[in-house]
Structures are given as structure tokens and as C-alpha cells.
């Protein structure tokens, strides 16, 4: 029954052997432990000959347990487990004693380090004795991906995956894909037209045979686990049949509700109640805004079906499709189900619009104090002013514009401490666009610091200052107030230590990039983490930048934190490549470090008492309820069961279990107790 354990002590060159007497460690490992049948030391265990030594000895000595006393398991646990697997031993009988990081490098006194090393080896020997064979968990994979959000991040990721030959489902909650990038006028640092580079991608996506697009739709629920997600999508009632509609535009030309603020134009322009958000929209088919349509309003008020209201039927009447019209007032939300193997979250950001935060800037009462995205729409050739910079209040071309950076960013006093990262660059761009359009105009920029780190970024912002003549003032604006037709901007120039007062025609706030309003709720729907600012969290800031905390769910774009377009596209590509790796096989293997609820022969079946405390603490919803049934089908008892697909192996359930019915493979009670018991106490 007793295992035959081999102990391999590594010199690590002299990294270990200089301050640990490795020979003594090997000797003591054997002396004190009858189960240890073989010990040796070797110069570099991780080298090829070292691994060969391990493999050979497993075979020659018939070892069924191995302790490698070397460096941190984070370095080479994987290496040695693989080696032992090749030698025909179950890799989970290999344990690592961390002599290098925990002894030789931190305890220069040789006897001390040696004594501790002996202890550490014994602890792992005893743990190894209790190790059980574990087999990697195989999970089938649905080779299809879901991309949530149809901005540039989602579009890029979806195209990358689809081009590689996998099916992609894209869900976008707005009537059209395109996101914020479609709203931008020109893009830094090249000043190429955003729509010119964006719309071809949108068209490509819409026409891609591997991509199924749901617009005006939202994620209702996400169930399942890596490789096997069950998605429910709510297709919001569009009131327009996408199959029938040709996007001929007759309906929105006749719609009588013409004064609805356009979301796409950041409320600087108007749209109708049946509308496509912008001319290049994909799909270029309209949606009825049920909040504002007078027919829908009437139906709501009278509590009748929309089609029974006769208040206005202009769009329906104008629809040339026959015999069945493409407009259906009575359409209702529809829930559709999809199965996917991986998810990319690309839900983007929202521009700060809580004007009440900045009472000193007028709290939204001055029409000519606008946000960055509003300026983009003003500067855009397809915008409400057709690209002419006109101030919203009276259409006058502003002679002096003040740009204020870091509005809602880097302002802990207002509860937003982070840097929005893009504003320095887009403000520099704004000053250029303005100067290109209004040659004798003057742009002032108030900034805290200019952060233009990026390829060609610094040069770009210097161009705004040196060539385009924007006046940069280092300081914050304390107040904006109206004086006649002008806006008086009171600020500080901290470099000269003086107070600056500028009478401007228009003020542009470089408003922060914030997380979507519902980011928190959305993250909880997907069981992924988010930070204090509600941006979704990657699992490791450096080494796993696109992986969310839930396996199989990846992040792309500004939903994870403020980002500019190049960075977003790069991240989207990275997320897509992760998805492709995941979808590359029919099955995927996972580490078998998962929890298990015991099962015993009748009449006990399981020591689980069915309290389900484990269910409450499980961060992954991995604990299911299982009915143990008698032959007649009646339930004998309901006990907990771990879904190994969802379980991430934290062990919370095991520590919480009242009846000790749950064990965590690789870290069960026996193994931990064996470690504790084997420490040599005074």
C-alpha cells in the first residue's frame, strides 16, 4: 500500500547548493522516512538530462511518488509533472519542495537553510504519500464564439475569428453596429477619417458568411461554462421586419416626429421616431423608437395594441413592400438561444454625461459648453453641421475655444481618480481640426499633464502646439460663467503662477471615458470581475490582459479600461487569438484541481447533508443540486454536486462544508494534514 517515493534534490547550479547542504537533505529524506526508496541530487534537475534522470528512475525504481526539491513550483512543477507522465506515472503524484526561493536565496546561513530544507522535503514527501491519481478534465467545446458589442473592438474580434473559419454570433444593443468609432470625425495621430476606415469593416462584418448579427438585441442570460455557454439573447422589438425591409428610407422621410434628439449626434442634431441612427448604419434598416413614436405613446396611454391605434400610420402607409409591409407595430421582444464555446466582451465605454458633477462648469446649463464626443460630431462631415464648427446656441463660428482636459478624470475629489488616457490626444486633435476649419480662431487648452505616450503621439501633440498654435495652459479651470454672448473661463496657469481669464465662444470638455451605466449588472450576469470604476477586470494585468476571471470569457476594448483605437484593435485581436486557441479542438483539457462531493454506497449515498452552504460561497455557481433517487423514482435525498466545468478549484466549498463531504483534489484534508504533521516541531 505504501508508496515508493523518490526524492530528487536539485543543486540549481550553485543557487541551492551554495547555502543548502543538498547531500544532507537527500540523506535525511531517506533516513527519516521508510517510504522514500530512492534519493539523489543533481546539478540541474530541469535540464534535459535532469528530466531524463527523473524518468529513468521512475521506471527503474518503480516509483509511484516523486518529490523534486528545487525551485518554486511556479517555475517547474509543470516540467516535472510532464516528465513523470512520460515515464508512465500519474503526474499528480509529483510535488515540489521550494528550496531555492524559500531557503537558499533567503537564508544565507548553511546549517539553518539545510535544516529548513530537510523540513520542506519531509512535508512534501508526506503530502506525496497522500496524493491521488488525477486525470485532466476533458470538456467538449462548441466551436462557435459570441461577441458582445459591435464597436471597433467587437468588429475586429468577430472578423478575426470568422476569418479563421469559426462561426461568430455578434450582439449589439443599438440599432446599428459601429459604436463610438463611427461617431468620430478624424482619428489621431494620422487624422484619417474615422468613417472611411470604419464603414468598410462594418460592411465586411455584415456580409461575412460566418457571422450572425443581432442588432437592437441584448444579452438576457449567460449560463454554462468554458466551451459550453448557453446564451439567451433578447431581440428587442424593432417594429420592422429585417427580412422584408429594404431600407428604402420612405418611412423615416414621412415620420412626423422630427424633433427627437439624435443619440448618434450626441443630441446636437435631431432624428425621427422611425430612424436609422446614421446613413452608413449596418443594418441600414430602421427601428421605431417606442418611447417617442406618437402611435406607440397613444397605444400605451390607452392600453391597446399599437396596431389598433390610428393616431399616425404614416410610416406603414409609406412602406412600399407588398403584400406584407415591412413595418409591424405589434412586434414584441423575442428571446433566442445560442450555444457558444467562448465569449468576447467588447461592450465599450460611455462618455461622462453626469453634468451635475461639474457645477462650476455650469452643470449642463450652458449650451456652448460641450463634450469631446459632441465636438467630434460638430467636426464630422456627416454631423449636424456638416463639419462646420458652429456653436450649438446660435450657430456662430467660435473665434475662441477653450478646451478643458481631465474632466471626470484624475479628479479624486469628484470620485474619479483614473486617467482616461485618450483625452490628451483627442484634445490635441480637436485643436487641429478647429484650426484647419477656422483659420483665425484661437484654441486654448487647460491641462494637468500632457500624456501622449504612443507611437507618433508626442509628435502629434507638439504639432498642435508648435505648428497649429494652440495655447496650452497648465492648470485647472475653476469656473465658467456666461457674460453676454461669451463664456468667461476662469483658470490658473500654474507655470506662471497667474490667474487666467478667457472670454470664449465655446468650451469643450475632454469628458472622461466611463464604464457603461449597467457595467456592474452586466459583469454579474457573466460572473466576471470589475474594478472600483466598474471597468471589467482582466485576470492578470500583465500576463493575462484579455482573459476575464471566468474561463472562456475574454475582454476587448474600452470595457476593460480607457483605450484608444489602436490599442483596442490590438486587444481585440489578442482576444480573438485566445478564442481561436480555445476553439481549435473538439475538447479542451483542464487541470483536475476541482472540488468533489463524496459519493458512498447505499444506504448512505453521500455524507452531504444538503445544507448547500457550499452553494452560497461558491464564486462560480459551480455547486449543483442532485437528487438521489430510489428505484421507484422517489427522491431519497438531495445532495450537492460539483460541476467540474465551472469549478475553478478555490476550495471555498471544502472549507465551508459542515459534514466534510467536499474535498478539493490535490489539496484534500489528508494531504494538508500530512504536511502539517510532518513539520519537525521543537
Amino acid at each position: 500500500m505504501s508508496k515508493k517515493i523518490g526524492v530528487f534534490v536539485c543543486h540549481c547550479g550553485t543557487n541551492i547548493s551554495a547555502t543548502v547542504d543538498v547531500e544532507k537533505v537527500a540523506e535525511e529524506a531517506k533516513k527519516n522516512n521508510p517510504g522514500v526508496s530512492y534519493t539523489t541530487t543533481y546539478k540541474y534537475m530541469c535540464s534535459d538530462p535532469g528530466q531524463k534522470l527523473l524518468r529513468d528512475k521512475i521506471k527503474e525504481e518503480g516509483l509511484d511518488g516523486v518529490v523534486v526539491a528545487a525551485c518554486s513550483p511556479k517555475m517547474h512543477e509543470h516540467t516535472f509533472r510532464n516528465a513523470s507522465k512520460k515515464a508512465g506515472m500519474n503526474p499528480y503524484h509529483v510535488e515540489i519542495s521550494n528550496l531555492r526561493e524559500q531557503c537558499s536565496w533567503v537564508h544565507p546561513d548553511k546549517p539553518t537553510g539545510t535544516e529548513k530544507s530537510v523540513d520542506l522535503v519531509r512535508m512534501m514527501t508526506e503530502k506525496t504519500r497522500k496524493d491521488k491519481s488525477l486525470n485532466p478534465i476533458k470538456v467538449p467545446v462548441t466551436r462557435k464564439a459570441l461577441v458582445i458589442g459591435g464597436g471597433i473592438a467587437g468588429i475586429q474580434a468577430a472578423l478575426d475569428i470568422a476569418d479563421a473559419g469559426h462561426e461568430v454570433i455578434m450582439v449589439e444593443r443599438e440599432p446599428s453596429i459601429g459604436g463610438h468609432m463611427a461617431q468620430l470625425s478624424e482619428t489621431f495621430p494620422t487624422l484619417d477619417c474615422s468613417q472611411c476606415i470604419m464603414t468598410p469593416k462594418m460592411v465586411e462584418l455584415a456580409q461575412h458568411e460566418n457571422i450572425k448579427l443581432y442588432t437592437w438585441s441584448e444579452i438576457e442570460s449567460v449560463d454554462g461554462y468554458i466551451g459550453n455557454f448557453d446564451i439567451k439573447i433578447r431581440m428587442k422589438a424593432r417594429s420592422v421586419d429585417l427580412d422584408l425591409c429594404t431600407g428604402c428610407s420612405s418611412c423615416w422621410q414621412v415620420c412626423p416626429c422630427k424633433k427627437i434628439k439624435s443619440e448618434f449626434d450626441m443630441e446636437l442634431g435631431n432624428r425621427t421616431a422611425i430612424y436609422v441612427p446614421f446613413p452608413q448604419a449596418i443594418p441600414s434598416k430602421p427601428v421605431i423608437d417606442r418611447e417617442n413614436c406618437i402611435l406607440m405613446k397613444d397605444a400605451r396611454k390607452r392600453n391597446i395594441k399599437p396596431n389598433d391605434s390610428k393616431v399616425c400610420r404614416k410610416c406603414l402607409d409609406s412602406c412600399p413592400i407588398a403584400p406584407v409591409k415591412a413595418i409591424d407595430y405589434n412586434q414584441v421582444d423575442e428571446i433566442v438561444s445560442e450555444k457558444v464555446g467562448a465569449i468576447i466582451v467588447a461592450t465599450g465605454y460611455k462618455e461622462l454625461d453626469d453634468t451635475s458633477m461639474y457645477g462650476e462648469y455650469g452643470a449642463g446649463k450652458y449650451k456652448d459648453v460641450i463634450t469631446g464626443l459632441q465636438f467630434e460630431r460638430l467636426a464630422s462631415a456627416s454631423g449636424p453641421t456638416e463639419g462646420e464648427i458652429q456653436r450649438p446656441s446660435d450657430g456662430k463660428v467660435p473665434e475662441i475655444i477653450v478646451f478643458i482636459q481631465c474632466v471626470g478624470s484624475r479628479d479624486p475629489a469628484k470620485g474619479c481618480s483614473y486617467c482616461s488616457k485618450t483625452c490628451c490626444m483627442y484634445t490635441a486633435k480637436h485643436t487641429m481640426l478647429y484650426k484647419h476649419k477656422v483659420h483665425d480662431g484661437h484654441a486654448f487648452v487647460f491641462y494637468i499633464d500632457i500624456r501622449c505616450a504612443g507611437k507618433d503621439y508626442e509628435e502629434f501633440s507638439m504639432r498642435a502646439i508648435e505648428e497649429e498654435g494652440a495655447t496650452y495652459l497648465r492648470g485647472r479651470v475653476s469656473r465658467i460663467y456666461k457674460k453676454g454672448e461669451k463664456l468667461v473661463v476662469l483658470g490658473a496657469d500654474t507655470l506662471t503662477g497667474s490667474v487666467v481669464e478667457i472670454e470664449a465662444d465655446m468650451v469643450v470638455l475632454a469628458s472622461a471615458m466611463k464604464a457603461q451605466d449597467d457595467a456592474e449588472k452586466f459583469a454579474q450576469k457573466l460572473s466576471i470581475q470589475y474594478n472600483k470604476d466598474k471597468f471589467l477586470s482582466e485576470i492578470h494585468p500583465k500576463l493575462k490582459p484579455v482573459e476575464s476571471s471566468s474561463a472562456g470569457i475574454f475582454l476587448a476594448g474600452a470595457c476593460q479600461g480607457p483605450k484608444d483605437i489602436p490599442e483596442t484593435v490590438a486587444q481585440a485581436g489578442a482576444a480573438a487569438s485566445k478564442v481561436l486557441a480555445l476553439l481549435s479542438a473538439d475538447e479542451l483539457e483542464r487541470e483536475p484541481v476541482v472540488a468533489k462531493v463524496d459519493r458512498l454506497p447505499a444506504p448512505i449515498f453521500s455524507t452531504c447533508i444538503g445544507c448547500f452552504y457550499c452553494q452560497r460561497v461558491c464564486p462560480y455557481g459551480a455547486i449543483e443540486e442532485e437528487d438521489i433517487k430510489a428505484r421507484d423514482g422517489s427522491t431519497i435525498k438531495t445532495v450537492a454536486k460539483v460541476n467540474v466545468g465551472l469549478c475553478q478549484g478555490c476550495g471555498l466549498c471544502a472549507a465551508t462544508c459542515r459534514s466534510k463531504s467536499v474535498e478539493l483534489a490535490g489539496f484534500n484534508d489528508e494531504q494538508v494534514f500530512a504536511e502539517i504533521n510532518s513539520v519537525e516541531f521543537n
Partner: protein
Amino acid sequence: MQIEERKKIGYYPGCAITMGSSSEEYGTSVLRVSEEIGPELEEIHDWNCCGASSAHATNHKLSTALSIRNISLAEQSGYKEILAPCPMCSQRLIISQKDVADDEELKKDVADAIKMPCDGDVKIINYLELIKNYCMDEIAEKKKKTPKDLKIASYYGCLLLRPPKVLKFDDPENPTSMEEIVKATGATSVDWELKTNCCGGGFTLSRPDVVLKLTNDILECAADVGADAIAVACPMCHANLDMRQKKIGKEYNRKFDIPIVYISELIGLALDLGPISLGLNKHFIDTESVVNAFA
């Protein structure tokens, strides 16, 4: 006896508005109005300087002790609230209260210095708070006069509102308390931009050039929106805006003649109290136009 006393509010005049001082018309009108519509104000016995200005600028502990002594005196007399109409005083008292609450050591030192305990939970209120909390119904009830076409710009200055985290009074960027009171007197409240701007009070003596610029901005803005008078609730603001109009005219080539009235005077006029009893004859800029509007 005890309970009845607590209904009264401790009145802390401070140096600027007490009888015989430069802004006595503010104090006079506050007391006169409260005689008429309540609540009953009782001067805190043996009050002393609040510690603003010189003490505050030179010795933090001294200024705190000065303030806290007044609060402790009020507490010992059984007041639950102190009215300090001068915002310099109310701000100083509130900040001192917070400072000793946050700093055990300071609290001990102050208690030693004033030979009184200093942990009273007396609430310090400014004049706008008093009117809003106690007098809005009374004004409506006892109002006798409604002015004809009197456009008032409400001016708060800085001390009533800042620092907002400590004072917690109204919206620091867009306060509206005074406007509500103005409307209650029957006058028209005009919306204007500079109601919370600084009048330069702190630089009155050291940098009159700065004060002239700031007061000019304020007066200009009020004049541009057509205000007939500016209402204030601070003796510093009053002094700067009232006294400097002629000088501004010289400096900036614009002649102003805008009466600066205390909000208490305005209420008094609406209650038909005599202009002299309200101190309206003690202003630099003639207040006749305002008085006449109530005729």
C-alpha cells in the same frame, strides 16, 4: 423653565455686526425682524471674538479656543442652536467644532485653555438657514408690503458655502436659499452668474487692486442682468460691494449705483418695519430706491 429656554436660539453677533460696529445695520435688522416673526434670539452671555481674521491667520489653537469658548458658553446656557449671522463667524465656529471633534489632543488643549468642556453638539446656523428653517411661513403670513418691480440679485460670496464638505449648506456651485427668501418678500429674483464668486474680502486691505477687479466683475454682472439691488448676508461682501462702487467707477470707467441690502433688511421692508429701524440709512449707496419699491 429648562425646556422653554431651549426653544430660544443663542445669538452670536460677532464683532462686525454688533451694536456700534461697522456693519451694525445687519445685526439691528436681524434682531428687529426676529422680534416681529421669531424665533426668539438671545445673545450669548459673555461672548468673545470668533477667532477669524487675525487669530485664525496666526495661531490655529488660539482661534479654535476662541470659537469653542463661544460654543461651550452657548451649550452651558442650554441652547441647541446658535445663530451667527456673519458667515465669517459661522464658518469659523463650524470649522473649529469639526477640528476638535477630529483631534482629541486639540480638544484637550482647548478644554484646558477655556476651562470648560468642549464637546457640545450645538448646531451653528447662518442667517439664511434660520429664515429657511423657521420663518418662511411667518413671512408669508405677516408680509404687509409687496415691492413693485424690484429685481434682486442674490449674492452669497464664499463664506456661506465653502468649504462645502464642512459647512454642508446648499449647493456650493448653484445655491438657491437666498433666492427663495427674496421671492418670499415679493421681490423678483434674477438669475445671474456670479452669485458665489469671491468679493475679495480677504484682500480688502492688502490688495485693494484685486478687490476692485473682483467687485467690479460682480457689480457688472448684476447690472447686466438688470438687477435693481444686490442682496447679501455677509458684512464683508456688503462692505466691499457697498463702499467701493465710486472707486470702481473711476478705475473701470463704469458708473454703478446699485444698492446693496442685507437680506434681513429686505424681509424687514416686506414686513413694513421702518427703514431707519432696519438701518437702511447707514449704507454708502442710497437705498431709497429699494425702500420706495416697497411703498
